[in-house]
């Protein structure tokens, strides 16, 4: 028997953004339902037991960008969210050298001085410039992107806010900002540092999750997506969610249920029900139907529009804009269960850098070459990885004495090239194994006994991530972070304020401004738009303003 219930609002997809939207709507008094195709909520922010006794953040794996305003509005700590800052990190060259990252500024200076005395002062200038950009951009994350073609007072007001802030920082600093926002991370680092190894350490953050190389203009800005967050107000810090990333989703889910919202898992969307250009509800794959005048999709814009709405119901220009929106799979992941802590012969034993992330970037050229492989449809022969050992901070994630590794790997193509044919179907078990071997080879450079320590390894190609989570091409940001896809261009010009041409249908995931990174900002901003339309302006999420 099929069911048919009515709600005020339905959210499709229980990722962190969908849950955030749902929380705000439920708190404003709307009868809200969240449907999720998987058996657990969280989308890409989940904790999964992949191997008996090991709890993984099996997609996204670290937390920093989750907006404090949202944590406070929704009282997430009350629902169990605890973010533990991790300390440091390290980049190794595989030849005995390493450069650690330390939260103590003077320790960090001494560490850089080991590699280049000149780069010590460069580091101060670099860090100050990046932090100034962070402070500039942070208030914009929780504000809607103004439509420059619009004459509506609110859009003009937002534009004036932007111009005023630029006026306040002065023309010289605006010049620096224009440069920073449009430069490549490689060129940006070349301006500051002389040591290739120091540059390589900082470069990773400019390319994570993108389909761009370190010398592609616009990647310096991507750096901000890794620096503009904070852990409890400590700007630029990163942390682990205790209990793995699923803890964020669980807290959001609990907050939602307390506010009276409902969550239905194992409930995959069939299609949006649309009558006369208005959404009236959703039809599930199992035949159930739910009605609501407001439907918010947490899926990326391509999946929402091209798979579940139907081109015939939409203006041609909009469909075209969605089709050309670039969501490029460029990264894979390995989740590895270890029977003991592996050895890192090049590192001091039990240093605090073990509690941070590891990379093996030898030079900018190595990173750029990794990108070149990907452009041709191959995974990088010398891949960039961002590896963490979360059990060094949260030992409860694995049985006593055992460890785990989370290895984010870039670049890996979605449509793998085999013999000149590019297709996601080329990701066979054999290819996945070969990809893993390539990553293990790279890991072995810094951790020679890694292969002997492995009890179990889960290998996830971009195609796997797409299949499991629903992210198009497995892209972690639900869309490239290039200027043509940011602000008022995200996800499509004219539809950048979470709306779509279908009345009542909203897009609330990371395909919208300000993009991905477990920020929850798109979800909160979308809730604000929905509540504004309903006239519930007192229940809207906090609007960020100048904070420093």
């Amino acid at each position, binding site marked *: 028997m099929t069911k048919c219930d009515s709600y005020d609002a339905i959210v499709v997809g229980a990722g962190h953004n969908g849950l955030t939207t749902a929380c705000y709507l439920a708190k404003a008094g709307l009868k809200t339902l969240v449907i999720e195709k998987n058996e657990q909520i969280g989308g890409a922010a989940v904790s999964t037991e992949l191997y008996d006794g090991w709890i993984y953040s099996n997609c996204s794996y670290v937390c920093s960008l989750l907006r404090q305003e949202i944590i406070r509005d929704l009282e997430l700590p009350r629902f169990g969210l605890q973010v533990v800052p991790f300390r440091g990190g390290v980049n190794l060259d595989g030849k005995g050298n390493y450069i650690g990252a330390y939260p103590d500024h003077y320790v960090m200076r001494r560490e850089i001085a080991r590699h280049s005395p000149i780069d010590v002062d460069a580091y101060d200038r670099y860090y100050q410039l990046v932090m100034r950009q962070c402070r500039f951009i942070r208030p914009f994350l929780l504000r809607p992107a103004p439509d420059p073609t619009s004459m509506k007072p609110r859009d003009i007001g937002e534009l004036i806010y932007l111009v005023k802030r630029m006026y306040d920082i002065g*023309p*010289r600093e605006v010049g620096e900002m224009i440069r920073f926002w*449009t430069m490549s991370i490689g060129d940006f680092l070349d*301006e500051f540092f002389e040591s290739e190894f120091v540059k390589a350490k900082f470069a990773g953050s400019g390319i994570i999750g993108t389909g*761009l190389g370190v010398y592609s*203009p616009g990647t310096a800005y991507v750096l901000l997506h890794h620096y503009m967050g904070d852990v409890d107000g400590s700007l630029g810090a990163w942390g682990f969610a205790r209990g793995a990333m699923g803890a964020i989703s669980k807290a959001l889910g609990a907050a939602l249920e307390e506010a009276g919202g409902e969550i239905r898992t194992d409930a995959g969307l069939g299609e949006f029900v649309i009558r006369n250009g208005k959404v009236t509800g959703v039809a599930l794959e199992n035949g159930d139907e739910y009605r609501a005048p407001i439907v918010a999709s947490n899926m990326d814009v391509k999946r929402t529009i091209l798979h579940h709405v139907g081109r015939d119901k939409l203006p041609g220009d909009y469909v075209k804009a969605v089709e050309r929106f670039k969501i490029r799979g460029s990264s894979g992941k390995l989740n590895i269960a270890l029977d003991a802590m592996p050895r890192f012969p090049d590192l001091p034993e039990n240093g605090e850098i073990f509690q941070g992330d590891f990379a093996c970037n030898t030079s900018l050229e190595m990173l750029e070459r990794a990108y*070149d492989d990907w*452009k041709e449809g191959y995974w990088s022969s010398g891949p960039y990885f961002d590896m963490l050992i979360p059990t060094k901070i949260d030992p409860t994630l694995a049985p006593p004495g055992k460890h785990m590794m989370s290895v984010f790997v870039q670049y890996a193509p979605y449509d793998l090239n085999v013999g000149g044919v590019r297709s996601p179907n080329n990701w066979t078990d054999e290819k996945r194994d070969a990809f893993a071997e390539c990553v293990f080879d790279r890991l072995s450079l810094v951790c020679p006994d890694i292969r002997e320590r492995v009890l179990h390894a889960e290998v996830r190609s971009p195609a796997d991530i797409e299949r499991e989570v629903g992210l198009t091409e497995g892209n972690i940001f639900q869309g490239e972070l290039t200027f043509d896809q940011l602000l008022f261009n995200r996800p499509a*010009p004219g539809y950048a304020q979470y709306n779509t041409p279908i009345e009542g249908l909203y897009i609330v995931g990371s395909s919208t401004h300000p993009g991905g990174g477990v920020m929850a900002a798109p979800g909160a901003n979308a809730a604000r738009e929905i509540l504004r339309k309903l006239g519930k302006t007192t229940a809207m999420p906090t609007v960020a303003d100048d904070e420093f």
Partner: protein
Amino acid sequence: MAQSEKRYDVIVIGAGHNGLVSAATLAKLGKRVCVLEKENEIGGMARNYEIADGLQAPRIAHLLYNYNPVVARELGLAEKIDKAPISTIALSDDGRHIEIANGALRYADGAEHPDAAAYAEIRRKIEKFGKLLAPLALRSPPDLSEGLSLAGAGEAAAIAKLGLELKMFGKKDMREFLRIVLSNIYDLALDEMPDGEVAGLLAADAVWGAWAGPRSPGTVFLLMYRYAYGADPSLPKRGAGAVVDAIVDVARSRGVEIRTGAAVSRLNIKNDAVTGVVLEGGSEISAKVVMSSLGAFPSMKMAGPQHYDVETVRRLRNVRAKGMTAKVNLVLRQEPKIGGVSLAQIAGRFVIAPSAKYVERAFSKAKYGEFPGAPVIEFVMPMVSDAAQRGRYLLSAIVQYIPYHLKGGWDDAARDRLTALTIDTLSQYIPELRENIAHVDALSPAFIERETGAPGGHWHHGELSTDQLLTVRPVNGMSRYAFGVRGYYLCGAGAHPGGGVSGAAGRNSALQLLKDGVLS
């Protein structure tokens, strides 16, 4: 002892086209100007030279793109230069070439091309948006440091005017402009058409002279810059050197003195103000103002870094100018024959860029300082129809990507490799080329730097990327031509708006220094 010569109002260092335009513009307003050129010939990158006995060839630039009609009108060049737009042939591996003539794209044999409409739409947009931005090239970059004063209002009004014009486009084109202006040509083309010669041509046109591949964001802007005065290049009669000759005529007729073989070794500076220059022989020439058409960094060195603060020196050192373009001139014994190209079409521009991927792959090698497997080439045979040179034929090729920072350096062997690579690539389309060659001149980016003073041998003296444009060109805080020391001005392609044989930087800097009152 150094001897002092008569005093000028303005000395211009470098007789490239920008330096000459500066000189002519100032002379027109009654200023006494002297141009000093270290080489024995005038014209820099835009000059002609005698490649073989009695045969003139364009040294580097061989076509006009953003030849600026305003500059030409102001200087009265228009009637002196005989130029006509030419067609473009995008060469195809299978012999089915594509021709663009009078804005329309079709197969070279006259048949309809399936991507003609997509090409026309991209071209329409790029030309329209380029035209919108074109006025920016003819004024100093906006100065916002004036804030809310009267002077500041004037600057703000200029920006508001641009915004208003953009608004007049209507929502659709305005949104399209804001979407694509910082994006890459690879996606823009391949969103509309399959990869092939048409996409390859657009990709190549976006990256000529640049350290950027088609996938690099910012390449759509480069295409707008190039197409601002129309997408079809024009070929001046007697080569690009004819433009320089015309500017020289105008300058001389107004009393500008041009000295060749006069290399400047440094500036004379007293009390933080320029008083003249010292030539390499030791003689001094005094002037109230010195303009330099060299790149920004060499211009700073000429004044001496002690006159700049550390931060400025750091910024100047970081100006990116990594040349990626070489020039190869061939003298041929017979008229070259290209399969699938008619006699009438041979006077056009030829582009070897069979796909956007091909262009990207060439860049992917060169960015590491290696020769590309197959370079992207633009060639013209400018003298084919010129009766005076009958019996000998010239092929003028721009070859990209050829890195300035070549691994192993630019020695004779490297130059021979450049020659061989160019001839190999051309031979795939011109089968009898090799036997037909009488003489080769291959100019590497390193050679171009040595000869013209352009940093890195870069056409624009500095990459035309968003982080080096407008208010941050050549560097943040120095965009309005005044170059650190009172009375010292930058007038070359390193300044706003950049290169191309447009003369805009030379003109703008001359007008700016008059406005600044440094001559009074």
